[in-house]
């Protein structure tokens, strides 16, 4: 459980994978290493997962360890909890996070509390992987992120990779973790051809086993003028914005959260203490969201006032509309981040 964090080493060679491939590779490697690991979910067998998370595993490990399920999320996620209590390490897929409403009890009242209710005597080593995010016209029941919904409820860890390298390392960490880990992968980054893919999410991903630690954010760009905190898709938007801002002499630091529970408050605080400005960008609903928590964390803790009031950009508190003219109007993007940052460099408070 204590393999080196590959993010701190120089990669040996370029081996560019998509997040989908990185996930299925990580699961496959763990299944090979540990016979208690298995995968379950809808269409994860022959089909390899609607989002490619289990490609090739059925052929390799067979139907007992790669189990297609009925459309019965309450039962099969509940079953995963029972398996996890009985010596197995299930990896379960909830196809879209938007479906959490039919099965949340098994997640937050059973899986997340098993360790606590048993005084640490029964653990719940399971991974729930689920797709998040919109931007491709799938409308209001298939485009949500719901990061904060999961972050708010105790007893589970919640990870959100922004690239293949981290996806593989976080998946290994998640499978080896003795706790329920919610692994949220963003459809815009997944590398399924048919969904388009942000190029930056496809990156060098070593073949060997390595863990990216859960609970550690990553400063993906150093800068001195403002801290932009993002996660999943918005990391890439922030990076694109930072490039443009660089031309105008604004030097943005970008923090990729990677995990929202436990939240790496230390890395955020250190960055904001340095830059004096904070913009949080996410594509979940605004209120009671990622931005709220990070702004509160910073404002509670930092002794000196910021150079500009902390800001957040998120999907507004409305259902996600289908029509692309509305959907893209509402979602954050590089251009919006750029102009918001420029505004934040003006008049200090």
């Amino acid at each position: 459980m204590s393999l080196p964090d590959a993010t701190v080493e120089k990669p040996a060679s370029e081996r560019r994978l998509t997040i989908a491939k990185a996930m299925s590779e990580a699961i496959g490697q763990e299944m090979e290493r540990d016979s208690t690991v298995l995968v379950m979910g809808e269409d994860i067998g022959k089909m390899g997962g609607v989002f490619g998370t289990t490609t090739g595993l059925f052929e390799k490990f067979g139907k007992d360890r790669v189990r297609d399920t009925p459309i019965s999320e309450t039962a099969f996620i509940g079953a995963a909890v029972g398996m996890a209590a009985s010596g197995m390490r299930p990896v379960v897929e909830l196809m879209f996070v938007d479906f959490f409403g039919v099965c949340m009890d098994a997640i937050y009242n059973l899986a997340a509390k098993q360790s606590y209710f048993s005084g640490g005597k029964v653990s719940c080593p399971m991974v729930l992987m689920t797709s998040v995010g919109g931007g491709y016209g799938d409308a209001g029941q298939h485009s949500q992120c719901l990061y904060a919904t999961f972050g708010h409820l105790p007893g589970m860890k919640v990870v959100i990779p922004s690239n293949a390298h981290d996806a593989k390392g976080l998946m290994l960490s998640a499978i080896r973790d003795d706790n329920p880990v919610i692994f949220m992968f963003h459809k815009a980054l997944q590398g399924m051809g048919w969904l388009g893919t942000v190029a930056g999410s496809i990156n060098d991903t070593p073949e060997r086993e390595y863990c990216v630690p859960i609970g550690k954010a990553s400063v993906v760009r150093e800068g001195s003028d403002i801290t932009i905190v993002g996660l999943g898709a918005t990391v890439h938007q922030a990076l694109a914005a930072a490039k443009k801002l660089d031309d105008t002499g604004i030097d943005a630091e970008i923090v990729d959260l990677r995990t929202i529970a436990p939240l790496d408050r230390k890395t955020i605080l250190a960055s904001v203490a340095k830059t004096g400005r904070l913009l949080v960008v996410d594509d979940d609903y605004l209120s009671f969201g990622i931005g709220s928590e990070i702004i509160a964390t910073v404002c509670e803790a930092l002794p000196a006032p910021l150079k500009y009031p902390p800001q957040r950009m998120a999907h507004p508190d409305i259902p996600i509309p289908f029509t692309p003219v509305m959907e893209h109007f509402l979602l954050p993007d590089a251009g919006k981040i750029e102009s918001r940052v420029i505004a934040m460099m003006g008049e200090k408070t």
Partner: protein
Amino acid sequence: MSSNHSKRLWMYAQMVKSRHFEDMIKPAYFEGKTPVFNMAKGPLPGEMHLSDGQEPCAVGVCAHLRADDTVTATHRPHHIAIAKGVDLNAMAAEIFGKKDGLAGGRGGHMHLFDPAVNFSCSGIIAQGMGPAVGAAMAAKMQGSDAVAVAFLGEGAANQGAFHESLNLASVWQAPVVFVIEDNSYGISVPKTACTAVASNVERAAGYAMPGHNVRNNDPDGVYEAAGIAIDRARSGSGPSLIEIETSRLEGHFMGDPEGYRPKDEVKRLQERDPIPAYRARLVTEGFDQMELDRAEREARELVDQAFSFARGNEYPEPKEAFDHVFA
């Protein structure tokens, strides 16, 4: 049945209309998505679930329904919406995300609401079933003899909502009919791999309600079973379950490579395409070819008009996204 000339003609015309609607969607969906298929692009972004092959389910049931009867449908809703009489222009415009769409583009293809004919659908498996029970109870409490019909797939019959809704409907003697479109697949998973029983009508007894199985994707068979069930509901005798053996002629969604289907299966199913089969039967049973041609032509024209309307219609103003979050 054979005496019911106008109903059968209507059913045939609606099947043609529905199929033509899907046939119009196909090229439009791929516009802007080639050469590399990317679901996010083109005039019809997002998932698209076509109903080719499942038209008998829609027409055989809706032939018995009035505008004040409620229908809740699924992620695969077009055929049902059309048979229920949803405004075709507004429906096409909605699917294109346009201003005069049913919801001004907010809902899209999985969220079609037309209160004029009490139609709605939802993309969450089996979750339209509770609302159908509620609509049925509303009618009952209001002293109306309107009924409600919930459509679902055979995959959805393994979702908890199925069980809860059937039990609730039975306990409350709700005037509701549950219609399973059994196309043998839930995305890639065959029914046999995920359902404990061979036929979902075996489950009806667990809710003390009648179950009807309709074989061979037969519109007349659906019409007959639905007639019994809807009469029962309308007369206050309670709910029923109908299972229709139908076929999915396309992928689960557009772009689905269908690696999970036996190679020749679609071809075999296409040979039993219910629309030419029904036409052949009607002709055999004495329908005038010209009458059928005319009905076909009219149906197609309406669809063509709807697509012209939708394409010509403007996009809404982006900021209108903020409207209608609350009533």
